[in-house]
């Protein structure tokens, strides 16, 4: 799958300006960006729902604009809302999509059964979807996009709106799919999600890619994790900064804000005990010490010099009718 210079304009908003993305077969591309960065617009163009104003997009080498029908036979789409028919059972939903893929009645039934097992919905399969939890609906939704064994799976913010437990379960499920070799484009606003699931990450902002690479490579460039300690007595904060300097790699700066002292680190976990020892040696009492991973906000601050939510005001994602 590949896009070259994709452009799309909604009235006075340029949603995409020259977006270039590539996914190698059997890998996962994480498209990471804030609301309004153009993630959904890109997915909708690639899944033939939207026509680009400029640039080209190919799925399996097929042009999405010229031959949408052939592209549709090769893709699976899970959008931001669980696109399921609530009045049908889980099994009926899967069977229905199989028939619309022209798998034939027997194959559709068989595939529905397989997917219910695979997605841990076998017990709920014959219940009407209306009674499903959010996590179950999302699983069914993904199962529905896999009915015809697509060569590219599009997951548009698959964990948005899920509670933390369902989110973790969804990550495991996506990781399993990925392990089976499903080529996947995953959009997300969550850095940790991209980090866990993607082979490569494209960070996009205002409709174009601003950074691309493997998760580790990117994290390095984005400024990695940091250790934060909270001293008990604010008067000790300066002493803590002093005590942490030796642990700082070259070019790094220890910062303090009130009682919180922050040490940027590249390979954080090993340093935590050293930090504690250093505080101990300096005789500084601490209330809290924690590893903080970079958030999407940090990434954007690093890459663009402004926070992610500022970008949102300037390029809102078009409201979906």
């Amino acid at each position: 799958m590949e896009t070259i210079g994709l452009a799309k304009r909604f009235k006075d908003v340029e949603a995409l300006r020259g977006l270039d993305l590539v996914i190698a077969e059997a890998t996962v591309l994480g498209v990471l960006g804030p609301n309004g960065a153009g993630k959904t617009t890109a997915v909708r163009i690639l899944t033939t729902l939207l026509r680009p104003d400029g640039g080209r997009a190919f799925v399996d080498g097929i042009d999405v604009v010229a031959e949408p029908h052939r592209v549709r036979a090769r893709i699976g789409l899970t959008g931001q809302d669980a696109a399921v028919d609530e009045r049908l059972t889980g099994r009926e939903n899967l069977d229905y999509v199989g028939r619309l893929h022209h798998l034939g009645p027997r194959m559709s039934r068989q595939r529905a059964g397989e997917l219910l097992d695979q997605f841990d919905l076998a017990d709920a399969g014959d219940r009407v979807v209306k009674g499903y939890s959010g996590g179950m609906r999302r699983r069914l939704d993904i199962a529905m996009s896999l009915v015809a064994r697509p060569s590219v799976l599009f997951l548009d913010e698959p964990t948005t709106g899920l509670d933390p437990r369902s989110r973790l379960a969804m990550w495991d499920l996506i990781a399993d799919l990925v392990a089976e070799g499903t080529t996947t484009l995953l959009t997300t606003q969550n850095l940790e999600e991209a980090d866990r699931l993607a082979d490569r990450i494209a960070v996009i902002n205002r409709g174009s890619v601003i950074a691309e690479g493997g998760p580790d490579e990117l994290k390095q460039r984005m400024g990695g994790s940091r250790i934060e300690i909270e001293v008990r007595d604010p008067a000790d904060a300066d002493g803590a900064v002093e005590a942490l300097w030796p642990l700082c790699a070259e070019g790094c700066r220890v910062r303090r804000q009130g009682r919180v002292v922050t040490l940027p680190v590249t390979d954080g976990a090993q340093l935590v005990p050293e930090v504690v020892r250093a505080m101990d040696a300096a005789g500084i009492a601490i209330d809290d010490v924690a590893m903080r991973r970079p958030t999407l906000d940090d990434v954007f601050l690093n890459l663009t010099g402004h926070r992610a939510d500022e970008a949102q005001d300037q390029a809102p994602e078009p409201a979906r009718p």
Partner: protein
Amino acid sequence: MLRDTWTEATRNLRVVPRSPDLMIFALVQPVMFVLLFVYVFGGSIEIPGFATYQQYLLPGIFAQTVLFGSGFTGAGVAEDMQKGLIERLRSLPMSQSAVLIGRTVSDLVRNTVTFAVMLLVGFFVGFRFEGSIPAAVAASALLLGFGYAFSWIMALIGLSVSSVETVNSAGFVWMFPITFVSSTFVDPSTFPTPLRWFADINPFTAATNASRALYNGYSPGRDLLLSIGWAIGISVVFGYLANRRFARANRT
């Protein structure tokens, strides 16, 4: 395309028995109208050429029932839009026109069932086929075809507003005037001039008059051709508009 239409239609029909309340509510309103008009107003309404008010009223009620029944199309389409199901369907390698055709066909089936129940209610309150059986069948088919045509208007509305509640209110805004300012309940010759003018050109008047004539053993005259023309015209125009709208939905 036929296969996809069938898949879509069966999806919609499969759920009808699962929500019997919808079917019941679709019947409560016309049944209440029958009872109100026959027993409350009926005694004081006399229409020349009709032995009883029932003979005049019931064809009008049937027409109103199929028209209101077409509201299901709008609600169903809007619900699919709202849930994002339409997006999924548009990303499938299926016939795109099958989605709306499947929907209108399944609503036609649903409307036929409602209609059959209303016929029984009609017999119960004293309505009779005064003409031949084939004429009565033709009258019923005409009304159902008319309801099918209106399903396309509702489909277009459903695609445009994409919220079930809005569809319902948007539907009633024009359904009430169109059914009341017509020959449904009384003879429009008593209406003030502007309303009479509206009733005369109202396609609903033509359909009601044609089926009423057929049920009562009269010649429907030009109303028959006129109402068939309306039904085909509306289906073609709104079928085209709705399918175009569907293809462009969210495409902007």
